[in-house]
């Protein structure tokens, strides 16, 4: 171990910062050297940490690196902490390896782009953010990476911002991700409220210990763990393009192809799967949440595979294929088969990145077009690309000995064999398993359709004259991915094939995500045979339909079911439905609120109402303001007289005591002036209007004949000025 874990994300981040600040002034060579070195160095450091830290990774829960407190307030404390354990170490290697290869590939692919430095700055930034996501030891740090990769995705999809469509696609990706991030945030808050911490190891310890705080019922009879898992999965669905938030990924193909390979196939979109696996122990506390994860995964796998059947854009097909494969991975983690899900993530990173890079190579050769109806017969023209594509194609179809076969099989067999759902939800397991088998058939079919339409038959491209294989910096990474797609499956051979120690990945991940799922040997063999049959059937069917270009059966099929084909081609109108159900109503509502509530109700009526009121009163008052000093003076004189009269009244007695003694009432006015003898008092005790007592004395007594309520009126007169004041009281005589 040569250095801290923090250097791993820091290297690409520094590279990005440098390139953003001064990259424009450097030559292309300098730019790509800096960018590739930054990621390559991160790969070296990761490998160094991984292999030197092997014992710690396996036994002690991993290496940690605490940079410092990020923020702390009250009982919330979030450290900038990184951790490399078995799972994050593996992810880290995948990310840096794929990242480095794609950086190298990009030097060829983007060679003629004028925003070279900006592109590599974004790529570096992405790698840094992705590594933060992977290595983050607590959920908020993970969230930095989580949103950071979303940002980079936004920037890179809209890299060619001159086209409004590209910029809009980037925005759509970011906003859809944000919708998911809301779930991530709420999931975090739920966990924090329940467990009082956001550190992943602490949360997992709580969960593994049975976690009473996590299994306490929260809403609608479901435990905290269920809701937290559900909200976090919503976040994962956003990032990993699952139903209902998958819509951004096909549009994301507007970005440069290396970006699609790195971000939208191999790394970022797998973050959701990674997160669920990372928090596996918590998910295991909530079988219902796992069932939802698995169900959504299977549904997405199938749905996206169906849509992929009807697409004609090279990259769009791969995008739907990615969505579908991510569904497979979610079924893996959703059936408690975390190692299986991560294994597929691992192999998928190779074959899907390989496929995208082949797409890039093909489009590079054809001058940028991705329409597969205008390709064909490229096998001879682009030999390296074709061979790599063949390997990756067979891998994704699940043909035996290729990597995808083992990882897909691990998931499908696990889906049938799992017991994680418990007796009440046991039906989920065969349902998702069957869904996956159907999706696998679809996968084999649409991928083979892609292969046959692009690489076999007659060349239908306009530029067939000067087709050329890509330069070495593009072919090199391609070949590496091809090898990976071929061999990566060896890392996770099922026990039935290679013996009990063959499942390297499963055993490797065991300390992080628990032991691999047990599948009986016989069942495993049967599943493998079934998968092989399905894969070959799909390929065979596709060959029948599209071998060497669209054939008669394909045309007949389209003619027979035009409606169905149209619906599939237009992706089941999901984008349009979202547009009409969510975006437009919300925007209409906002416009309405702005005009009706903000402008009219608040500004015109509430604010304007007050000003109108004040204005109206003012208009009336100005009638008094005649501008004639003499009238003012007259009013002034009258006012003065009134004031003098009021002020000259005898002061109110400072003390008025009324005592009731039996049937008599005794009134005493404790007045400073009362004793001066200058005032005259009159007392009307029974309220009949006549004064019963009067004279200079401020005190009086009166005996009532009957009990009852009486009105007592006292008059105080100043005879000198003839001013008077009266005081009234009500008294009860019993």
């Amino acid at each position, binding site marked *: 171990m040569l250095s801290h874990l923090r250097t791993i994300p820091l290297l690409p981040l520094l590279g990005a910062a440098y390139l*953003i600040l001064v990259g424009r002034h450097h030559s292309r060579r300098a730019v790509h050297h800096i960018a590739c070195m930054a990621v390559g160095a991160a790969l070296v450091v990761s490998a160094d940490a991984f292999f030197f830290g092997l014992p710690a990774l396996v036994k002690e829960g991993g290496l940690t690196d605490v940079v410092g407190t990020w923020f702390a307030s*009250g009982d919330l404390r979030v450290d900038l902490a990184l951790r490399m354990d078995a799972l994050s170490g593996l992810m880290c290697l995948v990310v840096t390896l794929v990242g480095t290869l794609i950086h190298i590939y990009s030097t060829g692919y983007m060679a003629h782009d004028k925003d070279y430095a900006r592109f590599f700055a974004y790529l570096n930034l992405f790698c840094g953010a992705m590594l933060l996501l992977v290595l983050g030891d607590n959920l908020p740090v993970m969230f930095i990476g989580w949103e*950071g990769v979303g940002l980079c995705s936004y920037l890179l999809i809209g890299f060619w911002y001159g086209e409004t469509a590209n910029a809009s696609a980037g*925005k759509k990706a970011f906003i859809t991700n944000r919708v998911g991030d809301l779930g991530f945030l*709420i999931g975090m808050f739920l966990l924090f409220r329940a467990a009082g911490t956001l550190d992943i190891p602490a949360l997992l310890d709580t969960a593994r210990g049975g976690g009473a705080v996590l299994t306490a019922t929260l809403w609608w009879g479901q435990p905290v763990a269920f809701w937290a898992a559900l909200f976090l999965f919503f976040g994962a669905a956003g990032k990993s393009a699952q139903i209902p938030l998958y819509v951004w990924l096909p549009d994301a193909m507007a970005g440069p192809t290396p970006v699609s390979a790195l971000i939208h196939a191999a790394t970022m979109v797998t973050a959701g799967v990674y997160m669920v696996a990372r928090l596996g122990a918590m998910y295991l506390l909530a079988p219902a949440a796992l069932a939802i994860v698995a169900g959504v995964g299977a549904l997405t796998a199938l749905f996206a595979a169906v849509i992929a059947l009807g697409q004609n854009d090279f990259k769009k097909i791969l995008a739907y294929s990615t969505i579908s494969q991510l569904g497979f991975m979610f079924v893996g983690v959703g059936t408690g088969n975390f190692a299986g899900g991560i294994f597929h993530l691992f192999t998928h990173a190779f074959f899907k990145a390989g496929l995208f890079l082949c797409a890039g190579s093909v489009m590079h050769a054809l001058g940028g077009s991705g329409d597969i109806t205008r390709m064909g017969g490229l096998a001879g023209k682009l030999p390296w690309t074709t061979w790599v594509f063949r390997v990756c194609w067979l891998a994704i179809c699940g043909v035996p000995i290729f990597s995808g076969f083992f990882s897909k099989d691990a998931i499908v067999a696990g889906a049938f064999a799992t017991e994680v759902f418990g007796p009440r939800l046991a039906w989920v397991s065969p349902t998702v398993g069957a869904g996956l088998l159907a999706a696998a058939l679809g996968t084999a079919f649409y991928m083979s359709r892609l292969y046959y339409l692009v690489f076999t038959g007659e060349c239908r491209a306009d530029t067939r004259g000067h087709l050329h294989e890509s330069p070495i910096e593009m072919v090199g990474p391609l070949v590496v991915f091809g090898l990976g797609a071929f061999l990566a499956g060896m890392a996770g051979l099922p026990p039935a094939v290679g013996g009990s120690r063959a499942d390297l990945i499963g055993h490797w991940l065991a300390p992080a995500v628990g032991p691999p799922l047990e599948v009986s040997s016989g069942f495993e063999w049967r599943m493998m045979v079934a998968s092989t049959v399905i894969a070959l059937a799909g390929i065979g069917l596709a060959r029948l339909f599209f071998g060497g270009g669209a054939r008669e059966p394909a045309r007949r099929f389209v003619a027979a079911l035009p409606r169905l084909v149209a619906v599939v081609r237009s992706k089941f109108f999901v984008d349009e439905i979202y547009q009409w159900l969510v975006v437009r109503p919300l925007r209409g509502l906002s416009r309405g*609120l702005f005009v009706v509530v*903000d402008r009219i109700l608040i500004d015109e009526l509430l604010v304007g109402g007050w000003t109108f009121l004040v204005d109206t009163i003012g208009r009336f008052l100005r009638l008094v303001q005649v501008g004639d000093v003499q009238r003012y003076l007259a009013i002034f004189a009258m006012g003065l007289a009134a004031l003098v009269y009021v002020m000259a009244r005898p002061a109110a007695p400072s003390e008025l005591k009324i005592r009731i003694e039996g049937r008599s009432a005794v009134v005493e006015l404790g007045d400073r002036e009362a004793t001066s003898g200058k005032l005259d008092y009159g007392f009307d005790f029974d309220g009949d209007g006549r004064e019963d007592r009067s004279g200079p004395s401020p005190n009086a007594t009166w005996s009532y004949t009957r009990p009852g309520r009486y009105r007592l009126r006292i008059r105080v007169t100043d005879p000198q000025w003839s001013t008077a004041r009266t005081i009234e009281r009500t008294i009860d005589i019993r």
Partner: protein
Amino acid sequence: MTDLTLTVLIPLLGAVVVIATPRGDRTSRPIGIVVALVSLVQSLLILRAFDKSIGAFQLETDRPWVPALGIHFHLGVDGISLWLVLLTTLMVFLTLLSPQAMGLHKTRSREFIVAMLVLETGMLGTFLAIDLFAFYVFWELMLIPMYFIIGIWGGERRLYAAIKFVIFTLVGSLLMLAAILYLYAQVHAVTGQWTFDYATWATITLPRGPELLCFLAFTLAFMIKVPLVPLHTWLPDAHVEAPTGGSVILAAVLLKFGAYGFLRFALPFFPLAAQQTAPIIAWLAVAGIIFGALMAWVQDDVKKLVAYSSVSHLGFVVLGILVLSDKGIQGGIFQMLAHGISTGGLFLAVGILYDRRHTRQLADFGGLWKKVPVLGACFLVLVLASAGLPGLCGFVGEFLVLSGTFTAGKDWRASGLSSPMFGHPALLAGLAATAAILAAVYLLTMYQRVMFGPLDKPENRDPQVRDLGLRERLVFGVLVLAALVMGVAPQPILERTAASVQALTASYRDRLAEAHANPDGPARRVIPGQRPARPTTAQAERARPSR
């Protein structure tokens, strides 16, 4: 050099010096910039002298002002005002430094600088005053230069906007004045002293009815400033018409006074009334968060869009303060600072666009990144900071406020608050969190329409649309750096606010418990900590909502 009187007086003296210079900005602008810089440096010295372990006021300076009425020129700084003072001096400095501060008006720049410096004095005094009379004087002092800044250097409807701004603010502050005078008398009745001293006032508990009225008077003044929906309509007008510098200061600093005053005065003076009305204010805050975001989405004018986004962002601050936990209040304070940086910067960026293109309509822009890459990059960072991207300044405040609100029920029980401030905190947090989506929607839409897309309008291709100059780069460099540093290392800020916030919440809880124990009593003095005010376990148990 850490005398707070100096802090307040430096800009004022600077203003006097600037008046004496000849017309135009040849000499007045350098002097103004230097004065603002001195002010900034002096506030940094205060930051250095500040002791983060003390929750009470520090570096106090107390001079009799009008002894006959018990008025003191009493200033002090604590963790709540410390960073706001720094924000003020920084933003005034940056505003004076940036060439676009006066908008398209190029005349009377000397007077503009004078107005800015007087405004700075008013703002700093308001943050630092701990004598209610001095506070009120500074509070009103801010109004005058801002009125002139909008009214003289503003856009077409500047007079309408300036008068609207003044009347809205005055309505609130005059009611507050009435409440201040009432309290002045009550303080005398209880303590026998004629005093405006903050610490004394914060120990007086009023009878219920007057407490509620006084609270409403104070709160109205503050909520207009925030602004809380539905008291916000002055804001878009003021922002749109104000010159760039006015908008920047208005957004970055002036809006903070609402939340600051609420936290500093309304809560400690009227604990029970605050609790009674907290549900209404909390819902209004959340309504404002969502409403402001939706309004921002449909604006065609960039400045109006940013103005409405302020309404949305400051709702978080109010919500955080009402939560009354360390997380909530510290998050609220942090959000104020972050909003100052990000929205202040956004207004500056919009001002530069306006300077180059003489329009603020979104439809008139498009594809500008090609022309102004440096501005585009800085603008993007500020947009993302405003949208609350983790790693930039906007995230920490929002995260703390939301997590504080979400876990509020638990925190209230744990801290011994006798009854909850408002119901359904988790629901409110969830609703408020949707603003994260909406912020991305309106900010990125705005950004895209300005910077992305084809560069197809001839006006946008004009060579006059040039990238940032040296001084502008400096200004944006500082802002972007601040946004980054605050996002990555917010802890130095948070740890300096912690002690004061804890002291404030602890005393609030004590006084609230006393008020609950003695709900209809007369005006009285309760000195927190001198009586066992924390409710007993039995009371706390009773207050716990039954499941």
